[in-house]
């Protein structure tokens, strides 16, 4: 497997320890921690997972192993940040996603956090003074969903908010 990051329609903003990506195609914002950012930046289709692991360790300055890189690849793929079909994570000995993500949440070290960029009209005020008609939802209102805690991921494989 030689993963390829999807970079078209995406712009990146570097923060001290993270990278924030805006995906113009899907109107989503992703926050990648140092490891995930290094994996995404270096997934150019020329490196195997082992090679990526070495590059990630050198570039991120954070300890990385094959399992962590595979985990990052899986999360990046789920977030729509990898080219379709370039990531196949099915290796014996890899912890289940539930197990791995559970550990990361406990350690406060989720790799990718995602939100959906709301359309401006979704910000319409819904709180008229008492006694008045509430303005109905605007036509293109994004249905409200409970927010996941920022920087955390749910410890299940259920569909993510994004």
């Amino acid at each position, binding site marked *: 497997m030689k993963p390829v990051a999807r970079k078209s329609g995406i712009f990146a903003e570097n923060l001290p320890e993270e990278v924030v990506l805006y995906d113009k195609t899907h109107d989503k914002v992703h926050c990648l921690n140092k490891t995930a950012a290094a994996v995404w930046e270096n997934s150019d289709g020329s490196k195997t997972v082992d090679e990526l692991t070495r590059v990630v360790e050198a570039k991120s300055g954070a300890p990385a192993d094959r399992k962590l890189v595979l985990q990052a690849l899986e999360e990046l793929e789920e977030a729509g940040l990898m080219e379709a079909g370039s990531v196949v994570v099915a290796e014996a000995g890899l912890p289940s996603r539930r197990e791995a993500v559970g550990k990361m949440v406990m350690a406060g070290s989720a790799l990718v*956090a995602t939100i959906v960029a*709301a359309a401006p009209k979704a910000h319409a005020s819904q709180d008229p003074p008492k006694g008045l008609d509430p303005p109905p939802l605007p036509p293109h209102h994004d249905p409200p969903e409970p*927010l996941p805690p*920022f*920087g955390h991921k749910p410890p299940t494989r259920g569909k993510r908010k994004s």
Partner: protein
Amino acid sequence: MLSFFAYGVKLELRIPDALLSQLAWPIVPGAEFADEGQADAVLRVQERQSGEGETRYEIVENGTVLSAVCSLEAATYAVESWAQLTVATLAKELVFVHAGVVGWKDRAVVVPGRSLSGKSTLVLSLVERGARYYSDEYAIFDSEGRVHPYWRLPKLRVASDQKVASSLLGGTLSGAPPKPIPLGWVLINRYEADSRWHPRRLSYGGTLLGLLDNTVPLRCRPEQSVKVLARAVKNAQGFEGMRGEAADFAEQVLASL
């Protein structure tokens, strides 16, 4: 018809005279009357009679009905809300984030949240405890990442709270608005009865996501929104946690900053 400029946006309102006379000026803080002519956006209000003789007011932009209400009072509220949101969306030099804002130790405390999240009540509680009022609706960020005031009276849903807001801030708001200040703290909170504010510290990225999740022009101008807010959070601290009642939260927050 009424045209005005606010935050660099020219907005035209085509509304019935009965409704126009109900609108409190300025409709958008800092708005100035403008001459007729090409506007950035036009809000129109159409009156329709129902079969039962009721008047229905439809607020329309570019042929799309944004709201439809059945009283003049509700229509007034809706026009004001849509006018403010339209300006927040189109203001090109600034990034509007749905949030309450107070000044504390010369830095901005920003509490992001959409409608019904209790922003106005939280802001009022913070002001009652010594923080400086900036906004109960939008945190406005300039290209340097500084936070500007949105200089209007907080809007509270309970009449008694509205009276408190008026008596607390009525005098202040008649004066000049405070200067823009750097972002100091971003407080992502969710109400849960009997909770105490024991937040966890957010990374810069987590803080930025908390702001972007409430950023009005994010889809229209994503690069500008992300860059401006990233600049702002680099010198700020973000926290996330559950909170109890507004008064307790305000007390706990100001004691901890």
